[in-house]
């Protein structure tokens, strides 16, 4: 199930606005591309992050990927469960595999993100490029 209010970045993060805070993670497509996630490094509570800049890393057996902040703001919560169970990112990327909750400094930044339909088209184009 994909909720209508979820938005997406071109770097394959998803975001959801809840009570003025932004929760985000990586998409199904992103975790498929990464393969088995074995290590997730997230910013600590209180850290500030800037949109489009690296704020952590996700590692699979194969490779390291940077994690980009989809919006600017202050981290209010990180998913601590991922330290012991990084595979949640693969198993449930939109649920238990969430990464971080940020208090956005500029809610307007969300406007530029893709909606479900645009992201689906974007992913289809990415997949096309693979072949």
């Amino acid at each position, binding site marked *: 199930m994909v909720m209508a209010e979820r938005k997406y970045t071109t770097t394959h993060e998803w975001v959801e606005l809840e009570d003025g805070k932004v929760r985000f993670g990586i998409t199904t497509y992103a975790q498929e591309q990464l*393969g088995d996630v*074995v*290590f997730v490094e997230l910013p600590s509570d209180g850290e500030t992050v800037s949109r489009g800049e690296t704020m952590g890393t996700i590692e699979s*057996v194969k490779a390291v990927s940077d994690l980009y902040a989809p919006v600017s703001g202050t981290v209010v919560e990180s998913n601590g469960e991922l330290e012991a169970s990084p595979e949640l990112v693969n198993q449930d990327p939109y649920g238990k595999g969430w990464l971080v909750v940020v208090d956005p400094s500029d809610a307007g930044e969300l406007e530029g993100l893709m909606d479900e339909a645009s992201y689906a088209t974007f992913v289809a184009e990415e997949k096309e490029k693979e072949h």
Partner: protein
Amino acid sequence: MKGCGNFHKNVQENRRGVRVNHTPLFEEQVRLGGRMVEFAGFMMPVQFSGLVDEHMAVRTAAGVFDVSHMGEVEVKGPEAFEFVQSITTNDVSKLSVGRAHYTSMLTERGTFVDDLLVYMLAEDHFFLVINAANAPKDIQWMRDHNPMGAVIEDRCAAYAQIAVQGPNTEAILQPMVEADLPAVKYYRFTIAKVIGREAIVSRTGYTGEDGFEIYCSPEDAAPIYRELFTHGKSQGLKPCGLGARDTLRLEACMALYGNDIDDAHTPWEAGLDWIVKIDKGDFIGRPALQEQKETGITRKLVGFEMIDKGIARHGYPVVIGDEVTGEVTSGTQLPFVGKAMGMAYVPVAHTEPGTEILIDIRGRRLKARVVPMPFYKRQKS
């Protein structure tokens, strides 16, 4: 370079107009959901069901790998023995028909040209299996170091190779092969009919598990590959990609050319002393190895595991004290042993198991500990 590795009918152009080869199993593997990537000029599957799933299948049941990209060379004639003996480090006089060994070719400096398998098909006929990425270089090297005039045939396009690895391999393969597989011990082979098609069936592999490698004609590869699943599905056989092949070989601490061994390192430094028979007579690289044996090595390949939380990978700097002394040659989170481990060249004073070293992981110096190799050793049944 010309020739090697091209299954000529299958040369395609990729999106950038670069020629890439398709192995005879390309379509089969796409059909099975393989994610194809370019590797050593071939489109190869990096994974199917998932790297960890495939890795575990090989450790606990069985997995099948297309390794048709590997290069093959046949050496024939009365001069064949002398030639192979002179360009490789292991002792060919210890081989007999039906046996193979792991060996290396060295430069005059004693560093690796490549690592390879040598099979003795007959007293005057050898079958050499070399790395795909090195094949053109290796074949040129052989031709340039053949004063005795052995017949050297580039047979890269004549063979496909299928590796079946894991504890259930023998049971899966036996009904397909007209040979008694239990009689084919480790590093032995037989030339036998596999579903009626002649192939070299060899008890070798690159995973640390029991298993066989089948060298067959390209047109026989797809029928054999399909038949393996007919017999193997109920026994947990899974298609596997290069990703799992790499993590499996790393758990078993088998060297990968270009990572752990290359033309800057010698067998002494790589801990591959057992494939060098220094007293067998002259071979290319021997004087340099003799000299290094006398002067002693300054660095050596060791295994390590991370103490701090982090994953060391190929190319990350190794730091001892405050000095960068080398780099990680291979490393990742290993699926079966469940630890972040790797291999690296370190100064000889720091090679004892238990010694702490630092790995620079993207700007942070994290602690690791030297450990014995291999990281995984299968239980002999």
